[in-house]
């Protein structure tokens, strides 16, 4: 079997369930792939690792990959899994912040220049808010959580399936996310990336890998709990089963947009990608020359054709 290393974007959490599930169910083995899953330290680091061929595939935030690619990193997305953005502004449910207007006069915790913070101005524009309507505090991921938990901030910018779970874990209280996607911001998020040269040299292997991954996602979608359990089986210290399950369940709706409803996973539309690139160029500090050829960043060529 071919040995393949997949590096995740972060330490394992609910979103990663399909990979573990696929491995546990022998879906990868069936395609002749011996999969090794590496935990990561952020999308940027994983992208660099893939570019440097330290890992074969990466599961990263695709916009982050685009920024690296435009700087010359030889990486390409061979499948975009989260076609809807999980970005949201969230606070404790009992604070009753449910609409953009509720943010007025509140304090928002952000991490400087992370993907959410970059899109944040667009969200404000779309919802008619101004920077002066609220206060901002900045810190790293941990600080953001702490700030909300301790009341130094009312909201934080985070992913629906990630930070909300952590806050709930820590405090037992529910969190209400205001999703950016609900306000007309269409942007892709995580996907599978690989080294461009590696893809050329191993076209068949990439095809098999994507095929297996597609099947793994489909299988996991149907059995969220079992999929989450597979994380713990491989990784006994990977978290609590409830949190992992809930986190994964929150991820599933992000797999498809209105256009790709009913399709198999990873079948991202060109329009969705172009829109993402345009948004990133305008708000996300992506170099303007990215607009010239959005297709350079991704390919659906290695995905299995619809059907099975």
């Amino acid at each position: 079997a071919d040995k393949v290393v997949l590096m995740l974007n972060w330490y394992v959490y609910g979103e990663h369930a399909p990979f573990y599930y696929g491995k546990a169910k022998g879906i990868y083995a069936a395609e002749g792939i011996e999969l090794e899953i590496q935990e990561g330290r952020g999308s940027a680091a994983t992208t660099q690792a893939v570019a440097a061929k330290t890992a074969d595939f990466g599961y990263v935030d695709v916009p982050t990959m685009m920024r690296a690619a435009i700087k010359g990193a030889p990486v390409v997305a061979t499948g975009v899994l989260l076609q809807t953005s999980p970005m949201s502004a969230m606070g404790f449910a009992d604070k009753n912040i449910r609409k953009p207007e509720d943010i007025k006069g509140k304090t928002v915790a952000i991490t400087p220049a992370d993907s959410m913070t970059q899109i944040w101005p667009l969200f404000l524009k779309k919802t008619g808010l101004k920077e002066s309507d609220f206060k901002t505090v900045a810190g790293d991921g941990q600080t953001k959580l702490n700030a909300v938990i301790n009341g130094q901030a009312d909201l934080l910018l985070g992913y629906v399936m990630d930070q909300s779970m952590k806050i709930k874990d820590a405090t037992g209280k529910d969190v209400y996310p205001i999703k950016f996607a609900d306000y007309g911001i269409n942007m892709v998020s995580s996907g599978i990336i690989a080294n461009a040269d590696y893809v050329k040299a191993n076209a068949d292997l990439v095809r098999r890998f994507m095929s297996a991954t597609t099947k793994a996602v489909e299988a996991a979608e149907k059995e969220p709990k079992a999929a989450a359990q597979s994380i713990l089986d491989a990784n006994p210290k990977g978290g609590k089963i409830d949190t992992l399950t809930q986190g994964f369940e929150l991820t599933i709706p992000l797999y498809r947009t209105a256009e790709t409803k009913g399709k198999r996973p990873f079948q991202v539309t060109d329009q969705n990608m172009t829109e993402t690139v345009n948004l990133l160029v305008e708000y996300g500090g992506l170099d303007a020359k990215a607009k010239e050829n959005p297709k350079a960043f991704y390919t659906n060529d290695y995905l299995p054709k619809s059907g099975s």
Partner: protein
Amino acid sequence: MAEPKPQHAVSRMLNAAWVRPFLFLVFIVIAWDLSIRLFRIPAYQIPAPLDVVAVLRTEWPELLRQSWPTTYATVCGFLLSALFGIPVAMLIAGSKTVESYVYPLLVFSQSVPKIAIAPLFVVWFGFGIIPKVISAFLLGFFPVVVSAVQGFKSVDPDMVDLARAMQGNRFQVFCAVNLPHALPAIFSGLKVSVTLAVVGAVVGEFVGSNSGIGYVMQRSIGTFDLPTMFAALVILALLGVVLFWIVDRIEKLVIPWHVSQREDVIFAA
């Protein structure tokens, strides 16, 4: 002239070798517990010591297993620091020209936070032990150099003359006079270095490793598993204390002649 009489029995008891580490641990736990109660620190900020102790009890085989890679990386990084730091210090102390070029370079490299450049190590050296060792080395290196330079430069020129007059070559003179004279200073550098090497190894694990205490810590931060995270911190701290103690013992063996090793108290009654 040592301590005043009345406290003698008590202080001797408190100083008995086997009592100290024990008392010390008890003290830490109590201070911890007290400050949690006193400042009303909620459990999602700092867990109660008992929870941490529980984790340490139930998870110790796993924690022990994870501490080996960290210990290994720390020790390697530390040894590299000593191995490179002392000769570099030798060169710096030996020549003003070397000093004026190499020293700023070192300082330059030191003020860069390792956590910011550590991801590059991972890119270059992968996820193995190497990035951790490098990270530990980079943190531990500088204190050794600075202290050793100070030690080498503080030597009495008359003593150097003494050895020179015996036609010792530069290196012999160095080994006979400068090096032993600098040993106390070097050891003080090594002591700082060894604790920083622990931090360096963990930082290395933060950015790229799937084993080690740093990994355990980062993962438990992710799942908000504070008792495990603090258990990892406790283990790190203990690792630092043990390595520091080992360096201290070696110092006692290597420089028995030094004033700090004489039996009397340094400050008089």
